[in-house]
Structure formats: structure tokens, C-alpha cells
């Protein structure tokens, strides 16, 4: 018993710690950068440390690239993978060959923006879920479950229903953001007492918020005309079918800002797991941390919702799986959840597009179909392990 323990401890501190100590926050601020393999070799083999995290990151990136390529190539108009790569290389000015006119158009005007949007939305949702769980100190917090998504949806639906477009492409995004922010603040204020968020209160608050948001959306639908109602309904089910480059550009700054700011706070989120007071005792300005991260969460959720409608469970499923695989440290969890979220959403969108051709399944319906059973499993597992959530 003693020997393996000592050996484990000897190796362990260099593991997650090497990443911990990096004084330059930018080094962990790039979600998609695979941890360098050289660092792995330098430090030699160890248990569930950096090696595993590097491997996981590498696997996620590889899977994401692969699924994205397959998704770009697949559809009603099949484009062979090789042609896709050729065309991309051509546009990047690295040789390659352009496709014929139809191929180019399908690839660049329909498929690529859609996949890019899926990556952005998925990354935003995954990262928002991990962030929110960290801020609330509660593994069940998720933009969909606690009602943030539907809050943001109210803003977006209102913008569609009343035909508002005074901010151009940004109108729906801005409306979703403002409504999402208001909802996060509301949920936060309502569900906290004595610096803690109890699961029951959080879930009940989510139910209330979802009900209220549902009523408001219903009201918007009531005032909308038929064309708008159709638009709202399909938008609400969640879909990336309307993806265009201007839309991608509209959501890009919000999502990117959120994704880049979030890892900055990883270490402080770790400390927050101890509770608010202990975190403060360790030098964290808890008030400011909370305010900033709530803003970031709203930013991420709103940009996702504004573009793709209500897509639930990505923010719950992805961080949970990653926590099981690589531990709860937010240095990996935040960028990892962004990667994982992107992977899940690109895959889900691929299935949504191709499973019932030529029709398209609503993406939100698909993620909920897969996500809900996972949620059940999670509840049962937690109950078995620790007697449920207190």
C-alpha cells in the first residue's frame, strides 16, 4: 500500500500542477490548442495527470476535425472529402483545386457556414454549462435546465414576432443577450441564500422561470402573424438550417469573447468549489468573479440561443463526461467543454440533416432526445453514489 501511494505522489504533483502554475493565463486560454506532446515526454509517464488531459484534448480536436469534414462532405449533394480539402486549400491560397460551380456554392454558402455555426454554438453551450456549474457550485446548473435559454429565447422571439430589425443582423442576438442576462440575474438572486445555492431551490427557480418564459413566448406568438409563427416555432425547436456567413459573423464576437474570457477564471472557479467564504479567504474577490462570470455565461448562452434556438443538455452532458474523465479542474474543463460541446453539436447537426432525408430533424429535439436519458442516468448514478444532491 505504501509503495504505490508514495510513487503516485511523487509523480502526481507535476501532473495537473504544471498547468496550474503557468503564470501566463493566455497559455490556457486557447481551447482548441492540443497540449504539446513534448511536455508530456519531458515529464515522463504518470497516472491520471497531464498525459491523460493531453490525450483527451488531442482526441477531442481530432474527432471534431473529422466530424466537421464528414459533415461538410455529406448531404443531398455529396462532395468527396478529397474535393472538400482541395477546395479549402484553394481558397486558403495553398494550391488545391476549386470545385465546379454548384459544388463551390453548396460547400461555401451552405455547408461551411453551418458547420462553423455548429462549432460556435456547441462551444458556447458547453463552456456556458461548465461555467455556470462552477459559479453556482452545483453540477446541475445548465442554461437550459435553469431557464436561461428560454429567457434568452423570449428576447429573440419578441424580436422576431414584432418584426424588429433596427439593429440589423444583430437585433435577435442583442435581444437574446439582454433577456438572457436578465434571466441569469433573476435566477441567481432568487436561488441563492447565505452564499449557497441549493439544488432544490435552483431547479424550482428554473421551473418557475421556464414557465414564465413560456408564457411570454406564448404571448409573442399570439401577437405574431402566421409567417412569423412558423419562423418562431421552427426557431424554437432549435436548428442551424438558416446558417449564413453574416449570421456567423453576428454571433462570432459574443461567442469568442466569452470563450476567451472564461479560462481566465479557471483557477478562481476551482477555489470557489470550496464555498464563497473559503474562496475569499484564499484571496478571490468573489463578488467580482460572480458578476463577470454571470455576464460571460449570459454572453455565451445568448449568442447560442440567438443563432440556433433552444438546444438543451449540451451544457450539462459535456462537462459531466469530461469531469468523469479528467477530474473537475476548470483549467481543462472550460476549454475542454467548449471543444466537447462543439463536437457534440456538429455530430448532432450531421445526424439531424441526414437521418430523415430530405427532411431535417430539429436539432434541439435531437439533443433533448439523447440528453434526457443521460440526465436520468446521472440522477440515478448520483443517488447511488452519494444519496442524491443535497
Amino acid at each position: 500500500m505504501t509503495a504505490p501511494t508514495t510513487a503516485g505522489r511523487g509523480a502526481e504533483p507535476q501532473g495537473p500542477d504544471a498547468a496550474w502554475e503557468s503564470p501566463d493565463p493566455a497559455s490556457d486560454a486557447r481551447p482548441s490548442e492540443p497540449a504539446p506532446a513534448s511536455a508530456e515526454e519531458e515529464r515522463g509517464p504518470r497516472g491520471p495527470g497531464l498525459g491523460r488531459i493531453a490525450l483527451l484534448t488531442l482526441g477531442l480536436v481530432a474527432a471534431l476535425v473529422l466530424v466537421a469534414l464528414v459533415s461538410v462532405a455529406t448531404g443531398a449533394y455529396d462532395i468527396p472529402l478529397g474535393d472538400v480539402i482541395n477546395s479549402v486549400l484553394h481558397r486558403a491560397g495553398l494550391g488545391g483545386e476549386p470545385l465546379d460551380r454548384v459544388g463551390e456554392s453548396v460547400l461555401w454558402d451552405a455547408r461551411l457556414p453551418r458547420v462553423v455555426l455548429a462549432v460556435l454554438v456547441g462551444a458556447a453551450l458547453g463552456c456556458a454549462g461548465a461555467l455556470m456549474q462552477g459559479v453556482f457550485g452545483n453540477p446541475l446548473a445548465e442554461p437550459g435546465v435553469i431557464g436561461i435559454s428560454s429567457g434568452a429565447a423570449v428576447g429573440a422571439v419578441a424580436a422576431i414576432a414584432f418584426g424588429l430589425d433596427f439593429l440589423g443582423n444583430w437585433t435577435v442576438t442583442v435581444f437574446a443577450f439582454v433577456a438572457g442576462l436578465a434571466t441569469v440575474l433573476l435566477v441567481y438572486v432568487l436561488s441563492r441564500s447565505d452564499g449557497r445555492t441549493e439544488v432544490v431551490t435552483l431547479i424550482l427557480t428554473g421551473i418557475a422561470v421556464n414557465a414564465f418564459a413560456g408564457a411570454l413566448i406564448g404571448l409573442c406568438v399570439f401577437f405574431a402573424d402566421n409567417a412569423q409563427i412558423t419562423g418562431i416555432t421552427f426557431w424554437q425547436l432549435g436548428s442551424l438550417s438558416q446558417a449564413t456567413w453574416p449570421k456567423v459573423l453576428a454571433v462570432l464576437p459574443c461567442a469568442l469573447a466569452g470563450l476567451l474570457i472564461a479560462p481566465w477564471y479557471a483557477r478562481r472557479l476551482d477555489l470557489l468549489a470550496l464555498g464563497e467564504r473559503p474562496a475569499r479567504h484564499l484571496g478571490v474577490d468573489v463578488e467580482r468573479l460572480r458578476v463577470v462570470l454571470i455576464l460571460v455565461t449570459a454572453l455565451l448562452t445568448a449568442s447560442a440561443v440567438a443563432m440556433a434556438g433552444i438546444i438543451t443538455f449540451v451544457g450539462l452532458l459535456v462537462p459531466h463526461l469530461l469531469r468523469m474523465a479528467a477530474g473537475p479542474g476548470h483549467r481543462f474543463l472550460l476549454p475542454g467543454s467548449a471543444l466537447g460541446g462543439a463536437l457534440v453539436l456538429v455530430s448532432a447537426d450531421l445526424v439531424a440533416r441526414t437521418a430523415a432525408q430530405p427532411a431535417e430533424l430539429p436539432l434541439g429535439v435531437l439533443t433533448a432526445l439523447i440528453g434526457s436519458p443521460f440526465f436520468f442516468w446521472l440522477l440515478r448514478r448520483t443517488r447511488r453514489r452519494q444519496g442524491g444532491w443535497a
Partner: protein
Amino acid sequence: MIRFQGLRARTVEPPPPPAPGAVLAEAAGLAVRLGGRRVLDGVDLAVRAGEVLTLVGPNGAGKSTLLAALAADLASAEGGLLVDGRPAADWGARELAVRRAVLPQSSTLSFPFTVTEVVRMGRAPWAGTAAEDEDEAAVAEAMAATDVVAFADRPFSALSGGERARVALARVLAQRTGLLLLDEPTAALDLRHQEQVMRICRERAEAGRGVVVVLHDLGLAAAWADRAAVLHRGRVAALGAPEEVFTEGLLSEVYGHPVRVLLDPDTEAPLIVPERPAREAASGAGA
């Protein structure tokens, strides 16, 4: 921009080790009102480097509140609190964090971090300072001192109450601050670990730190503390060396129960025993 106001950017000047006998924290006329009730009133107390100061008293006497006030947790406290010679309000969260460490009464953790990761959290305030080099040594030493090495890689949530308490203490020790504020560090512990924790307190004090420890066990307090403050209804009823302060009269009044003070035949330390009715020789144990 937001990021530049963050924890990393504000460089913290690590304080020099406290001079022997220096006042680390000082409350003057401290009063705290919680929910309309005066929980603390007119408390004057100074914590010096090199001493173990224990706070004792019955439930609700204000021990934990006083500890929280000394930790600069209670912004609403009236009166003055100096930490390291400066008003507590003038220090930032991180400047306080390199000066005092606080062990809460109970420790919770939202996510399944391992024991080592939790202890390492104690080093967070020192990130970016020269003391960062001590991180590994401080963590290893704290874990050895509190006897938690054996479950270093287990998740915190899988530990028993007593094990969690020791891990929490290890985290606080790893912070290596001049002032340690411990709220009932022995409450969940068995006899051996209780003694061990108090020995750690003594060692830290002898190494020049100041240790404030809330205790329920008056015997432990008498055996290990340099000074004891007996709290009663939010006031300091007595302050001094345990053998002077722990008198039958005072303790009986404060606790509302007759108390006897005996002397340990070997060490002369006071042993505090509540007066109990004599038992019939029922179980055949003593009589």
C-alpha cells in the same frame, strides 16, 4: 478591461515573517449585530505572533462570530479591526489571504477534487510571488503533518467527516500565513488526531505564527493554549492563561452548569469536568 483587474494582475507584496510578539490582528470595541441581535459587543482582543489563543464558551456565545470578525469576514462589524497594523478594510482580498488563513467549521466541496488538489488550493494566494517556489514543499509538509498522505489521491467527497476536517486543516496550513484562525478544528476528530491538531497549533506558534483556535473541549484548551478568552453572551468574560481563567466559579456561571476543575497529577494542567450525579453501581464499571 476586466482581465487586468483580476487576481493575477494585482501583484501582492508578500509580508515578511511576523516579529516575535507582534500584534497580528487586533479588535477594539468590536460589535457585531446579526439579525437584530447583538452577537458580539465591546470585544477587545489582540492576537500576537508566537501564541496559541483559544476562544471558548457555550453555544451562541459568539466564538465563531469573533473568529469571522478577526478574519475580516464581517464587513458590518462596528469598532476597529487591525490586521497586520492596518485597518482590515484597507486590505484587498488577496493581501489578506497572504496574512491569515481560516479554517471554517465545516468544509464542503462542490466538485470531486482530490485531496492533493484541495490542499494545493491553499497555495493560491501565493501564485505569482516568490513564495510560489515553496508550493510543493508546503503542500507536502501540510499533508504529512495532518496525516492525510494515505488518501492523497482520493476525492475529497469520498472521505469521512474526520478525514475531511484534517484535509481542510492541511489546506489552511499549506497557506503558510502568519495568522491561523481555526474554527473548531478538533470537533470531528478522534482523540489521537485531536492531540495531533493541537500539537500542530503549538508548533506553528513556536515557529512564530499566531494561532487562534475555537475549542469546545476545555481540557484541550487548558493543555495547549497560551491564553484563553472565555466568551459569554457576546462579551469576553475573562482573558488570560488557562490556569488563571478556568476557575470553577467563572466556568459554572458561563456554562450555566456546575463545573469542577481538577489538576492533572502529572502535568498540573487543569482538567475541567462537569459536575455529575453519582451513578448507582449499575454497570459495575467504577463503583
